[in-house]
């Protein structure tokens, strides 16, 4: 009997101790700081935010996270996945935050938490230079347009297509990088992506691509994504604070100018996305 109650006591103590330890470890900010590394998930196929340039991982995300890492006092570790695998992996805890960036949408806000926006994300069409059949967004009716899988751009394109007399033939790619390749090869008539992205690609390949203005999407913004639960709140709060500080002292505008040629006037937080 005595041994029995002693055993029960030990087990109980173990439980309490375990609970205390795990409650402490569940605070993601604390574990990130303890490890000294912030794990960031991304797709590395979304120029100019995040892409591979001749073997080097580069882009606005890389620069911006380097600044965030400095503010938080941690190193950044990147995990590259196909875009449609990024959110499942975030939920599975493979990394602490997702770079992307991702368009801030109502549907996503129900499930995830966004940082302060880093750029505008309004969608426009990229076409092959010299293609006179497309001079305004509505001209894509009945044509084949490429877009990335599992993206907000895909949803927006489908919505826009529904308003046109002939539907758009939407082709979903694993990533936008391949859409540009196919556009250059003439397999598709255009790519639907956010304006900063296609403006960058067009400027990198002058003479191959042209941007079709005006953008046809609803006004939207890009942000980084994290989980909404209480464990991640301290981490996301810290990242938000770091980003607002980077914005306030002008580093954000500098980076935007570096990658987009101009800075964006973004709100400090998006509470009510347009879609």
């Amino acid at each position: 009997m005595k041994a029995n109650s002693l055993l029960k006591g030990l087990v109980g103590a173990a439980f309490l101790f375990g609970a205390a330890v795990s409650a402490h470890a569940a605070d993601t900010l604390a574990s990130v700081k303890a490890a000294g590394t912030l794990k960031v998930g991304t797709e590395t196929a979304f120029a100019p935010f995040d892409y591979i340039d001749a073997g080097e991982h580069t882009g606005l995300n890389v620069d911006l996270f380097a600044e965030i890492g400095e503010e938080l006092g941690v190193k950044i570790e990147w995990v590259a996945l196909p875009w449609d695998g990024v959110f499942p992996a975030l939920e599975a805890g493979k990394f602490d935050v997702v770079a992307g960036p991702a368009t801030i949408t109502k549907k996503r806000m129900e499930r995830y938490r966004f940082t302060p926006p880093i750029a505008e994300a309004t969608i426009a069409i990229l076409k092959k230079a010299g293609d006179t059949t497309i001079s305004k967004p509505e001209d894509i009716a009945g044509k084949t347009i490429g877009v990335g899988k599992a993206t907000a751009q895909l949803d927006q394109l489908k919505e826009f297509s529904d308003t046109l007399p002939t539907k758009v033939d939407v082709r979903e790619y694993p990533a936008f990088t391949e859409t540009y390749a196919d556009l250059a090869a003439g397999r598709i008539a255009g790519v639907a992506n956010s304006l900063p992205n296609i403006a960058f690609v067009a400027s990198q390949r002058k003479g191959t691509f042209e941007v079709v203005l005006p953008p046809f999407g609803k006004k939207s913004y890009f942000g980084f994504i994290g989980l909404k639960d209480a464990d991640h709140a301290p981490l996301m709060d810290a990242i938000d604070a770091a980003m607002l500080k980077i914005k306030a002292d002008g580093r954000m505008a500098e980076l935007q100018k570096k990658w987009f040629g101009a800075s964006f006037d973004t709100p400090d937080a998006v509470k009510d996305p347009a879609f």
Partner: protein
Amino acid sequence: MSTKLFELLLQASIYTVTISMVSILIGFAIAIIVSAMLLSRQRLFVLPGQIFISFFRGVPLLVQLLLIYNLLPVIGINVPSIVAAIVGLSLCTAAYQAENLRGGFASVPSGLVESAEMVGLTPIQIFRRIKAPIALRLTFPALVNEAILILKASSLVSVVGIVELTRMAQDLAGSTFLPLEIFASAGLIYLAINWIVALAGGLIERSLPGVPR
């Protein structure tokens, strides 16, 4: 195509080779256990062994990798990319290797086993001195074949975040708009690696003790 790009491909192929080799070895270890389960007399062991083989040969590797990476966390097992890649490849190759081993053990001439029993060797001795060496010798070519298959299958582990040869080729092709040169180069590297493995396998096979008739 510049040498810098080729160098990058070669560096990425180090991941390909390392992950593949580790997976083959771990897969072999698992295969021995599974084939033992298949050959055992207990119903309790045979069925799970058969289910294991059926599942890992029946589901595409791509789906297996996604399952291990995304589904396991749901039941509490969270693994980093490299572990998911190795576990996925190991389990897949284990299923095929287990089948090979089973065939190998079945091909051990029964006359040898019977005479060993008559001479008075214990089951364990028979296993160690007769069955195992002969089975391994018989299945060695299939093992080399598996190695080559896994090296090629490793091209899929980018879906769990490893930047191996194929993923590197994709990234480079995307940024340089030179798919032909880049993918052809990647193909050549795979060919070279597989050729070396086949060559090494042939050499090792020749040095293995022969199978008594």
